[in-house]
């Protein structure tokens, strides 16, 4: 992601390899720390500095004077702003995101309940994007300029350009209301609710663990449509990047050498070119996964999917500031974390970066 700085280039001697590795790790950690400080600073400003009365934003206007005073002291509003910020960071580090007005529970507990649903949705959507998008991208690159390429390009462009919430509504209309192929909004039909003990929070895994296959199928039937809709963006992005990486590889000289040697074309494509593309795709997949975790907000609203996006949206309309900011921080940390992880993985796998 970062352009190489002059200091990276100077440290190429064998004796300096270890030092340069160490410097890089420290650099990555430092930039991670800075990003987290930046993220918390922004949520702090949004939650504590921007509202005219931050206490009111947290407790709501029906709270008693005692509760008000208590929260006032808890936030340290009688102290200077930087002390308030340190206090805020201290609470965050202890996993304390405050109490939600809407549910009267700690925000951290709420998020623990809502997050698995989002994770489930985003994971399946990303997997769809990977297993459909990558072959599509390879196909387009191999048939560059001919009809498979054009069709795949159009599909990708529509996936990029369509408003996801609208696509979801149309899909509900067609596949649920008209054709009745899949189950409707929500994660489960009402009469299946609460039968399976939430262990992981991911319904399909929980149901499979206790052998409730009927519930497993119902959960799958509910999941397939929102996951496909959320996955269209992943599919568009991954297939486009795969195509472009693949074209880049196919124009290299080692491919020409392999072809001249008489290697079968499928082996040239999958055995040589694609192996190099796969390494580059790690970063792209990480980026997609992170953006789907975030982007699921709109899909969750359309499909009444009880995930973190819906939690944030509902809290927003109930003026539940703690819940909104708690959700923002958790999603933001995941976003940054996944991007960093895919960056590190890329460095680990690609010998040129190592």
């Amino acid at each position: 992601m970062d352009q190489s700085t002059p200091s990276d280039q100077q440290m190429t001697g064998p004796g300096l390899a270890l030092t340069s590795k160490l410097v890089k790790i420290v650099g990555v950690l430092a930039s991670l720390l800075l990003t987290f400080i930046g993220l918390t600073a922004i949520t702090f400003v949004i939650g504590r500095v921007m509202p005219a009365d931050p206490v009111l934003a947290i407790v709501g206007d029906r709270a008693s004077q005692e509760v008000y005073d208590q929260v006032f002291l808890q936030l340290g509003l009688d102290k200077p702003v930087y002390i308030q910020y340190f206090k805020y960071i201290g609470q965050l580090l202890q996993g304390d995101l405050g109490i939600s007005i809407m549910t009267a529970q700690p925000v951290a507990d709420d998020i623990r309940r809502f997050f698995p649903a989002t994770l489930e949705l985003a994971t399946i959507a990303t997997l769809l994007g990977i297993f459909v998008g990558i072959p599509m991208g390879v196909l387009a690159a191999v048939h560059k300029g001919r009809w498979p390429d054009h069709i795949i390009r159009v599909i990708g462009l529509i996936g990029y350009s369509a408003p996801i919430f609208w696509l979801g509504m149309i899909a509900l209309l067609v596949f649920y209301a008209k054709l009745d192929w899949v189950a409707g909004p929500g994660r489960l039909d009402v009469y299946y609710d609460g039968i399976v003990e939430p262990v992981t929070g991911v319904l399909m895994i929980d149901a499979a663990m206790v052998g409730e296959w009927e519930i497993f199928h119902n959960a799958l039937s509910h999941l397939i449509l929102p996951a496909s809709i959320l996955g269209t963006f992943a599919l568009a992005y991954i297939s486009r990047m795969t195509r472009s990486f693949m074209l880049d590889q196919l124009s290299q000289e080692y491919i020409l050498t392999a072809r001249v040697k008489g290697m079968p074309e499928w082996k040239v494509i999958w055995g040589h070119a694609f192996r190099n593309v796969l390494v580059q795709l790690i970063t792209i997949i990480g980026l997609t996964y992170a953006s789907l975790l975030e982007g699921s907000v709109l899909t969750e609203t359309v499909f009444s999917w009880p995930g973190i996006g819906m939690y944030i949206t509902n809290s927003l309309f109930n003026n539940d500031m703690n819940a909104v900011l708690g959700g923002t921080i958790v999603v933001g940390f995941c976003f940054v974390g996944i991007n960093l992880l895919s960056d590190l993985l890329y460095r680990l796998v690609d010998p040129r970066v190592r």
Partner: protein
Amino acid sequence: MASELSLRDWLLAEIPLSKSQARCQRIFISWLAFKHNPVAVIGLSIIVSLVAIAALAPWITASDGLELHLSERLIAPGSEHWFGTDGLGRDIFDRIIWGSRITLYIVALVSIIVVPIGLLVGTVSGYIGGWVDTVLMRLTDIFLAFPRLILAMALVAALGPGLENAVLAIALTTWSPFARIARAEALTIRNSEFILAAQVQGVSTAGILVRHVTPLCMSSVIVRLTLDMAGIILTAAGLGFLGLGAQPPTPEWGAMISLGRQYLIDQWWVPTVPGIAILVVSLGFNLLGDGLRDVFDPKSGH
């Protein structure tokens, strides 16, 4: 005919005689490359149509799209109402047309905020270098790492829903790539001879940044802006859909989909038509952006 020929000659002359001729030539040559790219031309025509429709709205529409006609609720598309009417009897065609102005307003407002900030941070960072560069780029990276929609939602939660606040929130998470681009451009030219010549002549740093560095960043910035525009429009529509952007009765397309949601099963056209409008416009920007990139930056090639 003769004058057209000579105009073409003037535009393609090997040795331009004036600064303005050189400038026109550059635009003309780019245009020649551009017009052979059918996809880009389609994109451009969509955007030009959008601008034309927005400008001619009072003459195209029969109503202002806000008046209620409760006796004409939910009429199906037909010769009377091309796109039908919504739950309050308003003509959807008219609302789509007036909504194009809001889309352009969002696009323009975000560009006006994002480009100058990005250029300023990027050129200063790249040209001055040193610790200024380090600090500014760390700041840029922080903003680059943020999830856009969630942050926009949090910001709207604090500032209150509304079109302007939504635009501000989007701008806050959009400027950083422009700073990156401008920095990269500034880095490559800061040691070139014409910059040195300007320095020797005593041009101030601000002067060099504004008059020499910024113009060279513009083509990459425009390409990037066009490519980002679809995402900006989709985010704004998403905020409108959630009820956090433009507020009713404003005919913003995302908000129209949100209002039409309850009619999805029986009066499908109410939420469907605004969605198609969003799709077409963001498709237009994507096609145009792809085309512009091919013209200005053939290396990234397709």
